């Protein structure tokens, strides 16, 4: 049960599980790399309004209000008519679980960061005039960060279960 908690702590911040296991430097590097990837991705796909851009890609997200919570289950546009059950599951996973894949703290920081004026200073484009290719590259980075954090969480769980391996790593010895 403790190992599950350590593993799921990665859903708060990437690399937190490794830090809790005593592998501080490793956890710090994982945090920096995954956070940089997510923030870079979000920066490349901002939008004019708050909550837009990357976060509006699938129209609704976990930060939307109570009135919108049923929206993903409803047929709201023509594209949804063509959607099969697997598409629906993936959309729901993306909307409700992705923030935890990427780390909910990172997700919230990214949400407010992408609508800030600092993004305007960084990007050579005006909001709304960013090429689709740049936006897609941003999406790839942000999504990749979430997938890699899943692997990191699994690794933290693996280390928490295998105490012998963990002890070797904490001593700086070879683990595998």
């Amino acid at each position, binding site marked *: 049960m403790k190992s599950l908690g350590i593993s799921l702590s990665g859903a708060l911040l990437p690399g937190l599980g490794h830090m809790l296991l005593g592998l501080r430097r*490793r956890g710090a590097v*994982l945090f920096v790399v*995954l956070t940089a990837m997510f923030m870079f991705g979000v920066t490349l796909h901002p939008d004019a309004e708050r909550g837009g851009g990357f976060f509006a890609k699938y129209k609704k997200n976990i930060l939307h209000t109570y009135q919108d919570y049923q929206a993903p289950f409803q047929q709201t546009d023509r594209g949804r008519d063509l959607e099969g059950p697997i598409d629906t599951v993936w959309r729901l996973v993306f909307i409700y679980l992705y923030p935890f894949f990427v780390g909910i703290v990172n997700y919230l920081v990214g949400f407010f960061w992408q609508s800030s004026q600092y993004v305007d200073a960084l990007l050579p484009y005006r909001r709304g005039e960013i*090429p689709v290719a*740049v936006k897609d590259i941003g999406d*790839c*980075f942000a999504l*990749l960060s979430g997938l890699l954090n899943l692997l990191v969480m699994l*690794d933290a769980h693996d280390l928490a279960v295998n105490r012998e391996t963990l002890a070797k790593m904490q001593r*700086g010895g070879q683990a595998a």
Partner: protein
Amino acid sequence: MIGIGFTLATLVAACLCIAIVYGLISGQHPSKFGREIAIGFGLMFGGILLLAVVVELLPVLFRSG
């Protein structure tokens, strides 16, 4: 329109990030992290470039007439 430089830079950055995470969770001795990251990066970046070349070459090789 975005330049090839930007596209390549983002590709290198993505491959490097994946290689670093892979290297760190591979369970290797800390002294072998560098080698692990270099191998991961080389395989990924090389593989993607090779795939791109093959995809570009295929229509030329199998062009009819």
